[in-house]
C-alpha cells in the first residue's frame, strides 16, 4: 500500500520530539480524519530553519509526511520552506495512495502555523 520511502520514514521517523522554548510552534489538525501534528522550529538570524521537531498523531502516511517535511525544510530559509507544497512532499515520498493525499496537507499547515507563531513572537520582542 505504501512506498518503501514512506515505510522507511514511518519506521525511522526523523526529528521526532519537541524543542523546549522553540522560536515557533504550530499545531495543525486534519479535519478529514481527525489527526494532528505539532511542529517546533528554531530559526537563525537569517531566518533559516536550523532545528525542527515534530509530534504526530495519525496514520502511517501522516507520520512519514511529518518526518520527510522536517528533512526537506531544515536549513532552508522560511520563505523557501513555505514554497513547498503538499504535492512535492508526496512526490518526495515516492507518492501516496490517493486516499492518503490529504495527510500531506497536515505538514504544510503545521509549518505555516509554526512560522506564524515565530513571527508573532518576534514582533512581540521587537515591540519591547
Amino acid at each position, binding site marked *: 500500500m505504501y512506498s518503501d520511502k514512506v*515505510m522507511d520514514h*514511518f*519506521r525511522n*521517523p526523523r526529528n*521526532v520530539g*519537541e524543542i523546549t522554548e522553540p522560536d515557533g510552534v504550530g*499545531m495543525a489538525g486534519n479535519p*478529514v*480524519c*481527525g*489527526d*494532528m*501534528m*505539532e511542529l517546533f522550529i528554531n530559526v537563525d538570524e537569517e531566518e533559516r530553519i536550523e532545528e525542527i521537531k515534530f*509530534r*504526530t*498523531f*495519525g*496514520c*502511517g502516511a*501522516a*507520520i512519514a509526511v511529518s518526518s520527510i517535511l522536517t528533512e526537506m525544510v531544515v536549513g532552508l530559509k522560511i520563505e523557501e520552506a513555505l514554497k513547498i507544497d503538499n504535492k512535492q512532499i508526496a512526490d518526495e515520498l515516492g507518492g501516496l495512495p490517493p*486516499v492518503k493525499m*490529504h495527510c500531506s496537507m497536515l505538514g504544510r499547515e503545521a509549518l505555516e502555523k509554526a512560522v506564524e507563531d515565530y513571527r508573532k513572537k518576534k514582533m512581540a520582542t521587537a515591540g519591547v
Partner: protein
Amino acid sequence: MRRVYLDHSATTPVRPEVLEAMLPYLKENFGNASSIHSFGQDARRAVEEAREKTAQAIGADPKEIVFTSGGTESDNLAIRGVALAKEKKGRHIITSAVEHHAVLDTCEQLEKQGFTVTRVGVDADGIVDPAEVESALRDDTILITIMHANNEVGSIQPIAEISRLAREREITFHVDAVQSLGKIPVKVDELGIDLVSLSGHKIYGPKGTGALYIRKGTKFKPLFHGGGQERKLRPGTENVPGIVAFGRAVELAVHELPEEARRLEVLRDRLMDGLLQRISELKVNGSRIKRLPHNVNVSVIYVEGESLILCLDMEGIAVSSGSACTSGSLEPSHVLRAMGIAHEVAHGSLRMTLGRDNTTEDVDYVLEKVPAIVERLRSMSPLYGHREGETVVVQ
C-alpha cells in the same frame, strides 16, 4: 520472526481437511452436477452431501439450504429476495446500526427504491435492545434483519427475543450469522429465524463460498434467473469444489465448537486482561460477557490505529482497526460510532480475532510486543500529556 495472525474475523486459511475434501472436485471429479452421466452424478452426490452437512450443522432441512458465493451474496439475496416477494404486503424493514455493509448498503439501496428502513441503535456494548425493535414495528413491517454477532466488537445480539416479536406478527426474520457460525451455536429453530447468511472463508473454508438458509414456507423471490439450479432460487452451475469445501468446513466447525470455543475464550481473556494490565488508558470496546469467544477489541487512547497496525505488522502480528484512517471513506467505524464511542477513541481501536492456529505462546508474544509499540507511538503523539501539568482531555 514469529508470525501471529490475529485477524480471523477478516478471513481464515483453508484447513487441510477442507482442502483435501475439495481437491478431487477440481481434478478428476470435475463434472457438472446437472449432467446425467456418472461424472455429473458424482458431482451431484457431493453437492447434496454438503447440503446435508450444512443443514445438520444449523438444525435445518437440506431443502432449506441454498449455496451462494458467500456472506455478501447471502445477505443481498435474503433481504432483496424477501423484500421483493412481500412488497405488496408492506415496504418497511427493520435493521440495526451495527450491521455489516452487505446488509446496511442493501437496505439503503432498497430505500432508494421506495422501501422505508428503521435502523435501531445499540447500547454502549454494541447490543440491540429488543424493546427498541418492538417500538420500531409497524403494520407494514415485512422484514427484520439483524446480525447474530458483530464482526468488529463481537457483541452477541438477543436473536431469540427479537424472533418472538417477529413470529407474533408474521414478520420474516433474517440473521447474518457469518461471524457466529462455528463460534457459538447457530440453530435455526432455537433462534426462531427464517433466513440465515453463512460464509465459508470465516470458518477455514475457501473464499467465495457460503450458503443461505431459507425456512420452508418463506415468501421469497430469486434475484438471478437461469438454469434452474438450487431449486431456481440461485441458478448457475454449482461451484462443486467450493460447495464440498464449505460443507466440510461447516461440519468441522460445528463439531469442534464446544471445545474450540472454550479454548479461544481462555486465550481471549488472557489477551484482553494482559493488555489491560500492561497498557494504561486502554478501553475495552464491546461487552465482556455477550461476546464472541475469539474477539478482542480495545482502544489505545492517544494513538492512531493504522500506525498501530503497521508497527505490529513489523513484529509479525496481523490485526485490524476501526480507525478513520484505515477506512476508504476516512470515517471511523460505524459500529464504534453507534456504540457512542468518541471519534478519538475509535481512532485508536484495535481488533484482534483469534483462531485455531493461535496458541498461548502467540498471545504472550503479542503481550510482550504491544506495550513498547504503544509507548513509542504515544511518545510521538501530540495528544499524549508530555509536559508537566499538561493534560489532554479525550472525551
